[in-house]
């Protein structure tokens, strides 16, 4: 017999799944939300998306090729996901050089310096967002009101719903007074305000998340425990004093809540492995984000909440394990 045969230990079959296919699913899940934000914010948003993705992929390619001198890992599409998520955390007016700095921080600092995919402690896109927010606050909070497609945003300096409410309460007003004074209902208030590219399209994001659940790419417990905690805390506070504390619906659909809970907090690398660990991680994010929103100096705290809980993940992985067969 001249033919040589393969010999290897079992199993001899493999599920049709790869890192690339999982990342591709995340990209597909982010498509509806990306389309919505491009439709609302126009060409500028498209440019931010393109620039962010290209920079992230390029930074990873350069680092693997010239610094690490290893085969490039851009084929696994994880840099594309980071680029996409970073873009969703930026206003449509972000200048190109800020995006590039963001990509260098996300890929270079948060991901590759730890050893690349699977090794990082902090979510790369969020690390970059927080870095940019602290370094360039004026650019990063230059929110434009929704403009519609093809209209170039002319950089009307607006603020996010979370921002204006915080300002109004800070100046001694109450939420109902603010809405009445500006001739708004709670529905139009949400629609009209400016936001980051990803924030506006909560429904599109949830749709994408359902796709990930159906494809069994991620599990629901982390987002569910975040949402449940946020609803519980904001429900109690807004019942006690609706004049200065925003309610559950407002808190779920504003800021980076849906994007953060469904796509950033569920990042494989920076979230706990066990179910119980994941629930504690989600509750922790929910508590921290509400504390920042109600009592902090920043109007939004989703990024900080996720980064803080990222630090706890190694401990959660040591403390909590899955139930083993035949053991207590």
């Amino acid at each position: 017999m001249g033919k040589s045969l393969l010999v290897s230990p079992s199993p001899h079959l493999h599920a049709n799944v790869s890192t690339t296919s999982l990342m591709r699913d995340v990209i597909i899940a982010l498509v509806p939300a990306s389309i919505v934000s491009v439709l609302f914010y126009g060409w500028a948003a498209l440019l931010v998306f393109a620039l962010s993705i290209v920079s992230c992929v390029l930074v990873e390619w350069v680092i693997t090729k010239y610094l690490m001198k290893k085969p490039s890992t851009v084929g696994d599409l994880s840099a594309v996901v980071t680029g996409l998520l970073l873009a969703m955390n930026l206003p449509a007016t972000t200048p190109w050089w800020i995006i590039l700095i963001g990509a260098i921080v996300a890929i270079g600092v948060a991901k590759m310096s730890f050893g690349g995919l699977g090794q990082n402690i902090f979510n790369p896109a969020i690390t970059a967002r927080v870095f940019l927010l602290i370094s360039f606050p004026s650019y990063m909070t230059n929110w434009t009101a929704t403009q519609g497609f093809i209209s170039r945003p002319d950089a009307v300096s607006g603020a996010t719903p979370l921002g204006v409410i915080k300002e109004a309460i800070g100046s001694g007003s109450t939420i109902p007074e603010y809405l009445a004074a500006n001739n708004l209902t709670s529905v139009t208030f949400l629609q009209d305000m400016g936001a980051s590219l990803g924030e506006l399209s909560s429904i599109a994001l949830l749709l994408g998340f359902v796709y990930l659940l159906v494809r069994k790419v991620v599990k629901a417990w982390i987002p569910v425990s975040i949402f449940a905690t946020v609803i519980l805390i904001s429900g109690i506070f807004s019942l006690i004093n609706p004049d200065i504390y925003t309610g559950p619906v407002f808190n779920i659909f504003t800021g980076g809540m849906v994007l953060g809970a469904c796509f950033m907090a569920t990042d494989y690398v920076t979230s706990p492995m066990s179910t119980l660990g994941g629930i504690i991680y989600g509750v922790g994010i929910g508590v921290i984000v509400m504390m920042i929103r109600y009592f902090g100096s920043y109007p939004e705290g989703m990024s900080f909440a996720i980064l803080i809980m990222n630090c706890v993940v190694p401990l959660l992985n040591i403390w909590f394990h899955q139930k083993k067969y035949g053991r207590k």
Partner: protein
Amino acid sequence: MSKLTFSIGGIHPHDNKISCDCKIEALPLPSTVYVSMAQHLGAPAKPIVAAGDAVKVGQVIAEPGGFISAFVHSPVSGVVKAIAPRKDLAGNMVPHIEITVDGDEWAEGIDTTDTLITEIPEDKALILEKIKSCGVVGLGGATFPTHVKLNPAPGKVAECLILNGAECEPFLTSDYRIMVERPKEIVIGAAIMQKVLGCRCVIGIEENKPLAIELIRKAIAELGYANMTVAVLKKRYPQGGEKQLINAVLKREVASGCLPIDAGAVVQNVATSLAVYEAVQKNKPLVTNTMTITGDCLPVEKNHNYLFRIGTPLSFIIEQAGGIPEEAAKLISGGPMMGKAISNIDATTVKGSSSVLYLSEAATKRKAESACIRCGRCSDACPMGLEPFLLNRLHKAADLEGLEQNAVQDCIECGCCLYSCPANIPLLDNIRIAKGQVLGVIRARAAAAKAAAEAAK
């Protein structure tokens, strides 16, 4: 009744039961058979024949080499040519008895007819003795001597005999075929084992075998066995794993380090049940078994289920089935999840042989390993609730203590982790090595403790 399944982990590979409609055909006799002395779990058997002896089919040619061991019988009639070491499937040298075939004359006292014998002997010791003297071993994969398993240690009581008809491995259909073609014999075999154990019996069959479920149910009804039921199981791998099957049927777990009997269960494969029937009712030793010839690169008409004589060389079977297909990149003996890759087609069949499986390169070739992305799919898939990613890391760090704490010794080597890994990390390969090391440590510790106890006396 709703469909049952186990509670932790598991995967859903495509079942690929291509050969399910191929009737069992008796394979012709080869010119020479090589009977392995190590075809059961435990000590190898000791030959009791010498070169030049004439043997008949079913005649004892080797005795048990220890408490956990089994008799071996001649599968053919002919002349013993040699007793010599020979390479087995994996390439290890194992003593074999080589017999030149000159006919098909059976030893006296063996009933080779198809007549169904429904009357079960009353004497439990006689039943056990027959099972032992006929060399019956577990045919579900482990080949553990059946008479040992049916004779629980003093103080341990079997509450339920679980007959394993799950056949959860993709591709394999030999258990399915015997359930369809010989349901009554299987059911009587189960009743015989029930008599020995004095307990009820549940026959677990996966939902993808509706005909087998129907025919086994019919056989139980016709034979009027009251204390025996069929449980329909969900299609899920590794449903047929002993611990998983106990969990599915009895909703109990076998505690780590314990045996199924500690959870009140005895699990036997349907093929073993058939062998028990033949041993007890027909005095027929275990010299034949059923095997599937199939694969993803084999046209349907070239699929077979063969009744083969144990000791027939694989090369003879492959030739009878039409040779190795052009696209086959790997030959496997057993299922694609837990079977062994065949490195040597001159190796011989043993009691536990269940298939020759041809897989194409696209289906079976390992892909390049990439970085772990901590997706947790391996722990989701692990039916023992282990964390393969963690065990892999601990293995790389050579942390035996950590490995033991994280229960590497509980691994059943089902392959779900490696199957599920998107980064193609050889998790099970590493875990197997680690498990061997940790079991070595545990055994050494037990031996040291025993020695210390002796010394203290």
